[in-house]
């Protein structure tokens, strides 16, 4: 942790700006995905889960069959996306939010991997093979985990400075 702080502190202005902008763009995307789901009472993850293919499809489809599980998945998605988005945007608990974002995107990727031979009934908005936008966004979060910025530009800076939150990198 300490090393990461010191390293991060060595960013040049352009590097820092680029990383912060990347963090805010990913945060914005998460936040909007979450907020639209919360404000749409009709939204549910069911069709996404039902359409699952690949290695873990059985698990995801089982979730879709259980109304209780679906409610939990729906709430976790809605609030997970919103809170991660908010955190990345304003730079608070940035490290936790980045890790949570990676986990969430990994689940999305594994639920519907764009592997050759897998067909989905829900249309995608682009053309993908193995790599899709979910994976690219996931990689962006891995970059932000390796090169953190919350303690430089973001609310985490206040906690780092006052020494109250070591976690906040």
């Amino acid at each position: 942790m300490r090393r990461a702080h010191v390293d991060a502190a060595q960013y040049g202005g352009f590097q820092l700006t680029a990383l912060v902008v990347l963090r805010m763009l990913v945060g914005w995307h998460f936040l909007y995905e979450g907020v639209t789901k919360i404000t749409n009472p009709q939204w549910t993850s069911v069709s996404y889960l039902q359409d699952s293919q690949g290695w873990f499809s059985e698990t995801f489809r089982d979730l879709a069959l259980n109304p209780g599980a679906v409610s939990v998945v729906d709430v976790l998605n809605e609030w997970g996306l919103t809170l991660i988005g908010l955190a990345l945007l304003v730079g608070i608990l940035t490290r936790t939010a980045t890790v949570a974002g990676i986990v969430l995107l990994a689940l999305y990727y594994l639920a519907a991997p764009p592997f050759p031979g897998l067909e989905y009934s829900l249309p995608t908005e682009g053309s993908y093979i193995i790599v899709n936008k979910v994976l690219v966004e996931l990689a962006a979060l891995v970059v932000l985990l390796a090169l953190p910025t919350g303690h430089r530009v973001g609310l985490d800076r206040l906690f780092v400075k006052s020494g109250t939150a070591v976690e906040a990198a």
Partner: protein
Amino acid sequence: MSDESVKDTEGQVESAGIGRRDVLKALASVPVLGVFFAGWYEKKLADDAKREAIMAELGLEGRAPAVIPDAISRPPGDRVRVGIVGFGGEGESLGRCLGFAHPDWIEAEARNNLENPANRTLEVFMGQEDLNVSITAVCDLFDVRAERARAAAANADGPGGATAGQATRYRRYTELLESDVDAVVIATPDHWHTRIALDAVAAGKHLYVEKAMTRTEEEAHQMYDAVTASDITFQVGHQQRQSETHIKAREVVDAGVLGHVSLVEVTTNRNAPWGAWVYGIDDRGTPATIDWEQFQEPSENKVPFSPERFFRWRCWWDYGTGLSGDLMSHEYDAVNQILGIGIPDTVVSSGGIYYFKDGREVPDVWQAVCEYPERDLTLMYSATLANSLYRGQVFMGHDATMQVGQTVHVTADQYSTRYAEKIAGDVIDPTRPMFSYNPRTSGVDAVTSATAAYFAQRGLLYTYRDGKMVNSYHLHIKEWIDAIRGNAETSCGIERGFEEAITCHMATRAYRENRKVRWDPVARRIV
């Protein structure tokens, strides 16, 4: 900027104090949050305004139908003693809707639920309201089914458990009518409906008659005259009358959203042996266990004992009317519920036995076209038992199209007069539904068997009340029981039943007599 980063590092090392620069940098991205929410709010306002403009134009509400017949629980009142005549698949199903299931069925459904937790058939059954009824009498010509009925009536494991008891088996329905039953459910093959109903009305018993109400036009007149002259409570088994989507669809029509409706297309396509009435033949069914002579008593065409005819009676004109009475009757009644069209002026029909060449008499591909010149409307029914494409009931109006199934979708027509301005102004998109109603607010329910899925899709098996899945048969039979206690009106009484029967008989006769048939509204006869 590079020296700034050096300073930052120094600050971190040398001091834990928070300076003005720290606060600025900490809050640097907060204004973006403001931009985000401003953008989100603007988009939401625009979306909401668009939606409200459409809904105001349509005069509709997105909520559940305001008036749901029978949604309010009432005190159960006096116990109603029910007799069931005919305990085949339909009779057993109606027994469950009264609150009584055979122990084997409960066991099988519990197993289904274990294998697939999404199968909630048993849970829905157990959640049914206790109607405070007892099945005190049963009549079936097949010993196995009669005993099954008695076992169901006595089974305390179910929503009717408190009033479960011993039912008496009668070998003739006339003996059942002499017992102390208050009300009778007729779930026999069609050729028996009228005889039982006429005697039941004469005995002052309330009646629930499965569709088709009768097998012939003459019988429809007899039943109409008897029931209207009595004060019994009468219900025909068109359970989709309880479906939330059908009630909503009627609201859409009443609000004038569709403009002039000139064509309605309804279908019942099935593609499996069960869908073509090739039901299983119970090998316990022998001349010793089935009263075959009594089965064919009302039929002019007497034949030797035939398990095929007994278990698959819908395939013969002697006992039913094939697609007409079994399936067109449901589709017609749904349209009659939504549009109130009554009996058509003329009907033409055609079809044939094109797939199930198994010795049956009734067509397996069949269509009927009903004309309503006074309404400037055509109703087209089509069916094949060799393809299962489902497209819902389609109501085609000048201004919009409505599709009704488990959901209601209303899509503006691109050449609509009424919506022309809103279509031009991009408020209404004619390529997408402008109004959709889905009574399932959240969660999922699964019905597993092909048969169950078929009925569920058409709103024939399950519907929703406040988002909760309920069996529409149960609601339909509950409405009848409530009406017997004087607390409700039945939604498919003798007038609607007569319209259903006559329309189906016009279609059947148009096919069998190979001509266009007409309804004479003065003489009240098919000519």
